């Protein structure tokens, strides 16, 4: 039995899917992504139109967020921090709002679907390697994969060691987007599954009223933990993206 909670915008999904379903299949998570996008765009337009020298209201929050992101990324990415701020800021705001919107009953978190998170992780993966190669040049960037070898002298290239290390690092690089996306997706999905199972238990225990306190007591705890997890997972996704991109683009220090 699937513990699927009811979805408020299910009618809308069905309506859109009937129109353009042959071209692109539309599911609930895509509709929720659009809702989150609309919220972010609307907030951005409202803040942009009412931009003031002395900030008030929403502008305060956005300025604090920008400043904090810049403070966080400066030790990790050095002088590229300001260049990558739009990408990292987009990830932070989109993931945070997507995570939090899932806590509202009847709505789903877009990040509770693997497709959303793997798309973001692939963007991180591609930008890591693109800007790494752009920064260092292809040969130096590939040498970086055989990590302790470039400092050891020319003789090391005659041994099989750097070539074996290259493949080990390659597997590590390919595993990065998977771990990045699965971490976010499973955290969100398991929280929703937990809440769904508790709701199911509540309905089951309506016949045995003696046990009904169990799900009733657990739901607030799961919700509180869920809010914490939403913030922590956003922080971790952004921080790890910064670490990955920072490692690929930083200059050699010797």
């Amino acid at each position, binding site marked *: 039995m699937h513990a699927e909670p009811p979805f408020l915008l299910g009618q809308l999904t069905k309506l859109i899917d009937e129109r353009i379903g042959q071209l692109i299949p539309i599911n609930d998570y895509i509709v929720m992504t659009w809702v989150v996008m609309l919220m972010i765009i609307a907030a951005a337009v409202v803040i942009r139109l009412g931009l003031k020298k002395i900030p008030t209201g929403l502008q305060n929050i956005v300025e604090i967020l920008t400043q904090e992101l810049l403070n966080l990324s400066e030790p990790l990415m050095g002088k590229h921090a300001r260049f990558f701020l739009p990408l990292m800021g987009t990830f932070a705001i989109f993931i945070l709002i997507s995570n939090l919107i899932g806590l509202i009953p009847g709505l789903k978190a877009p990040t509770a679907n693997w497709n959303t998170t793997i798309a973001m992780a692939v963007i991180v993966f591609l930008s890591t390697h693109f800007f790494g190669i752009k920064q260092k040049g292809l040969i130096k960037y590939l040498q970086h994969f055989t990590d302790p070898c470039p400092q050891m002298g020319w003789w090391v290239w005659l041994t099989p060691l750097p070539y074996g290390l290259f493949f080990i690092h390659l597997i590590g690089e390919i595993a990065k987007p998977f771990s990045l996306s699965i971490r976010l997706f499973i955290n969100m999905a398991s929280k929703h599954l937990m809440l769904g199972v508790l709701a199911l238990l509540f309905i089951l225990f309506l016949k045995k009223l003696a046990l009904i306190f169990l799900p009733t007591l657990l739901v607030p705890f799961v919700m509180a933990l869920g809010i914490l997890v939403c913030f922590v997972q956003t922080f*971790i996704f952004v*921080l790890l993206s910064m670490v990955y991109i920072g490692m690929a683009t930083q200059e050699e220090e010797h």
Partner: protein
Amino acid sequence: MESSYFFALTVLAAALGVGIAAIGPGIGQGIATGKAVEGIARQPEATGKIMVPFILGLAIMETLVLYALAVSLILLFANPFASMFTAAVVH
């Protein structure tokens, strides 16, 4: 008859997988939290500097459990081998 064994073993594997996978990261997170609290108690002004690598380390340890959880959820809700056993029942 075979299918009931299959599904029973699947559920058992899903439950045991997460349980066993939680042992190692649990120990690791305990050690990490202990050390972090020790560091903060010794030097309360370093809380901000300790916090970021601490939370990052906890999340990376937690990912190990989540991999097992992903496998368990696939086994429970999207089992790739289930069609071999349910097809005979439906048709």
